[in-house]
């Protein structure tokens, strides 16, 4: 019997998700025993023109990491969708836009202007054009979309593997379960279905109710590494974030920043964080409440750090 076929591809992301595949280590060898990797440009010599002639649905599982930022990525996403039985959005960028999705605060024109004209280390130059005519040829570049979108805005996605990047254990589980036909219901997120808080090693120190008069920044206080961050006035997104990461940041004494995205049935993670933090405030005077809230640096960038492109206001 021929081995099942697996593919991996990288769209708008930093490459950390590709690392999460390499981090499988010896399990990567087990994967090659179990399946044929037919397309994985970062690790193998693969040409796009080899992908096109494959029959539709001939790839069993494809892991696609990164969001969709330009038209070439969109084309590849559609092509891989057509060739694959199961598409797994690999990492939070593919799932919800991730950090590159924060560009949504500014829009395409502003980020191009900033990156190509305003950055102090640049000599002022032109903006990249979709087409450039030289003496010898007409050169084409894929043009940027107005906004970055999560993968499921462009193609149907079967499963989501959250994280920045997803830990290798989850990648391994997703891949092997997919090959064994043991994945849950389509549309599932392949991680915990409870908040990170529930799996946090500091959970025991979290009181039933938290009463905060102000938020602190990490450098302002000497925090107790064994106690709940929130209870110490330090913002941690654990209660609003999906668990499954193994609480790696918490174990390294850093609060959660939400890279596992929201829990099921949440339409807007930033709004969940707003509601979560609001309940902790021990104040009823509107002006004082505003002052406490003003103590959060870059609140939108923090609450939506990985999910702006999937937010109610910015998703398109």
């Amino acid at each position: 019997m021929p081995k099942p076929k697996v593919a991996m591809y990288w769209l708008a992301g930093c490459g950390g998700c590709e690392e999460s595949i390499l981090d499988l280590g010896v399990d990567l060898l087990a994967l090659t025993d179990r399946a044929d990797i037919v397309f994985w440009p970062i690790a193998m010599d693969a040409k796009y023109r080899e992908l096109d002639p494959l029959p539709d649905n001939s790839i069993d599982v494809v892991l696609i990491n990164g969001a969709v930022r330009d038209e070439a990525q969109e084309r590849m996403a559609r092509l891989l969708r057509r060739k694959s039985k199961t598409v797994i959005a690999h990492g939070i960028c593919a799932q919800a836009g991730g950090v590159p999705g924060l560009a949504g605060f500014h829009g395409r024109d502003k980020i191009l202007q900033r990156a190509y004209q305003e950055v102090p280390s640049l000599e002022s130059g032109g903006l990249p054009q979709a087409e450039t005519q030289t003496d010898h040829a007409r050169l084409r570049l894929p043009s940027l979309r107005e906004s970055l979108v999560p993968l499921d805005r462009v193609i149907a996605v079967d499963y989501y593997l959250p994280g920045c990047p997803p830990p290798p254990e989850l990648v391994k589980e997703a891949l092997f379960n997919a090959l064994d036909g043991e994945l849950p219901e389509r549309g599932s997120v392949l991680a915990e279905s409870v908040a990170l808080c529930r799996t946090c090693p500091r959970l025991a120190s979290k009181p039933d109710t938290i009463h905060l008069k102000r938020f602190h920044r990490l450098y302002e206080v000497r925090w107790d590494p064994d106690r709940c961050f929130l209870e110490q006035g330090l913002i941690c997104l654990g209660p609003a974030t999906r668990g499954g990461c193994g609480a790696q940041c918490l174990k390294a004494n850093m609060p959660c920043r939400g890279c596992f995205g929201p829990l099921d049935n949440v339409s807007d993670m930033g709004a969940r964080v707003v509601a979560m933090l609001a309940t902790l405030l021990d104040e009823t005077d509107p002006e004082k409440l505003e002052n406490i809230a003003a103590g959060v640096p870059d609140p939108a960038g923090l609450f939506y750090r990985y999910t702006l492109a999937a937010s109610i206001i910015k998703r398109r």
Partner: protein
Amino acid sequence: MTGTEFEPKIVGFFCQWCADAAADAAGRARIALPPNLRVVRIMCSGRVAPEFILQAFAAGADGVLVAGCLDGNCHYKNGNVTALKRMAVLKTVLTPLGIDSERVRRVGIGADDAKGLARVVSDLVETVRRLGPQPRSE
């Protein structure tokens, strides 16, 4: 856009015990509320998740009014305090999301205060009229 003047669309989340009762009282007293208002009756202003407000804007609202009971008078003891706290935190993210924070307001209204409600709604309508339509990125 046709050439007509901009009429703001205001979504009101009204708690059924006070704000919605005040809207009823306005009807009985023949006090007109601006036709810009679309009311969503809810049990308590503390039920208004921040998502509801964002969803209202995404669905075409130009302004949102969350109206509950007066301070200390919440039918459920402290739902209006929850609404107050959420509003304070929500306002910190509105500007970066492209929503002027003046477009969103939270008030407490007495169940019989029809005039007060009419004043609050009219004031928000005028504020939003001055700000113009909520820009949409479609």
